[in-house]
């Protein structure tokens, strides 16, 4: 009972925050609402008995990446005159309608899939030890590849930054 209630509370929070983020003209406000959405998502992860992922969600996305985003947006110092709503044109309307059509199509097909209850998770699911073991045994190669990708990104950023 309370789990369902919490799910709707935090799910609704994430949806609301995401919508607010999209409909803001002010980029700083958008960034802050995105953090709110991440927070709601983290709470949903906790409900899915994955506390480790939840904390990492807050720590990495909300805490680290979004701080950098906000930092950069604040440094850009965008003036009020530059912040205007997009105008509605025929072209954009057509694009949005097509997107909505496909989204509706997908949702309709998803709803047709019969609901199968999941097997209950085993003891210690989603805890740090289990996640760590999986990462360094079964998913070792993807994990290492991701690290290399991140390293490449860091070096690339350094090279681009040094150019001037």
């Amino acid at each position, binding site marked *: 009972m309370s789990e369902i209630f919490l799910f709707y509370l935090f799910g609704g929070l994430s949806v609301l925050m995401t919508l607010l983020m999209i409909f803001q003209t*002010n980029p*700083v*406000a958008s960034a*802050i609402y995105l*953090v709110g959405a991440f927070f709601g998502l983290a709470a949903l992860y906790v409900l899915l008995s994955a*506390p*480790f992922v939840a*904390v*990492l969600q*807050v*720590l990495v996305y*909300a*805490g*680290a990446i*979004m*701080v*950098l985003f*906000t*930092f950069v947006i*604040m*440094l850009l110092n965008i003036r009020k005159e530059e912040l205007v709503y997009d105008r509605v044109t025929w072209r954009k309307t057509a694009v949005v309608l097509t997107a909505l059509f496909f989204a509706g199509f997908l949702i309709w097909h998803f709803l047709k899939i019969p609901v199968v209850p999941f097997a209950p998770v085993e003891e210690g699911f989603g*805890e*740090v030890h289990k996640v760590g073991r999986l990462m360094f045994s079964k998913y070792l190669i993807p994990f290492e590849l991701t690290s290399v990708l991140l390293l490449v990104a860091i070096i690339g950023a350094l090279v681009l930054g040094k150019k001037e």
Partner: protein
Amino acid sequence: MLVLILKILIPFLLIFNLLPLLIWVERKGSAYIQDRRGPNRASFFGIRLGGLLHTISDVIKLITKEDIIPAHVNKPFFILAPFLVLFVACVTYAVIPFAHPIEINGGIFTFQAADLNVGILYILAMSSLGVFGVLLAGWSSNNKYSLLGGLRSSAQMFSYEIAMGLALLSVLLLGGSLELSALIDDQTAAVWRWNFIRNPLAFILFLTAVFAEANRLPFDLPEGESELVAGYHVEYSSMKFAMFFMAEYAHMIVGSALITALFFGGWQVPFLSTEFLRTNAESGLFMVLLAHGVLFMIIGFFLLGKFKSGKYGDKRDYEVIVIGLPMTVIGLALGLYTLLHGSFQLGDMGRQVFAAVLQFGVFMAKILFFCWVFIWIRWTLPRFRYDQLMHLGWKVMIPLGLASVAGTAIVMVL
């Protein structure tokens, strides 16, 4: 349910009652470090209590002052920012264990609000959210000084979070867990097993990073008065300003609690394990009560000895008696009661509670000591220059942190 609410409420209230006291200690301590008298003017019918009343008058002043919201600020975020800062400072207490868990009717009662198995990561996540409060305050004030203060602060907290994470990682390697309670258990009561001896480098790094995270001197660049007036909270007035102020002290207490829990054995009483405390609870209680009686009497006699008629020529003369006499009487009563009563009879429950209370007291004593270290360092060291700060953060602390992690890992494997 009620127990849970109490568990959440009691540490919270404890910390919040500590705040005004810490402000008093900060003022008085800074005064004595700078060879001054410190605050002693506020009085209540001539009773001054050595400046303690200043905190009360401060609170009344801050609550009753007009709350100004300047024109051209981004109002929702301007109001949100101080709440966010204080919120982040407060929720961190949830995972700090205050004593060894006790058993009640077969169930285990822990002295922490939430025993998360990702405890330390939770603390890191919350403290990284704290940056947003400062950033938002700086940006929404629509003021150049505030914005610069906010940007500085976020850059600084960001840089030092990495070093903090690395220092934490070496401690985690030693303890082999992310749970604070498990880390404290691992350190045991033996002082040489405490992490500040097992890994002093990580301790120094963590201490420095905590100072930077709490925006305390020598890292209080975000509010460098000489350059930025007061930094990110320059536009705030009344209780909103007070919330930033409170958050700073709350961060200090959290930082002290973390340092204690991670490096100084948390609630472990030096050399006395929980089992030892429980088996010897009866004689222990006797000794603790007797020691308190003697301590109270010593303080009381010291205060009474300072009484000199006509020293100030007003009611301040009698303050030492007003405080000294009850203390002497309490000490005398406690000591005599303990001596006359002789040995105490404690049940199984009583023994556990005695151990828990003693451990809680020791934990608080350690926390208060580190709070004092915070104040002490603030009034001893000058402020860093901004480039020095960044240099220290990125080029000194991060390599040292990596070395600490690598060293710990190698030693652990060997």
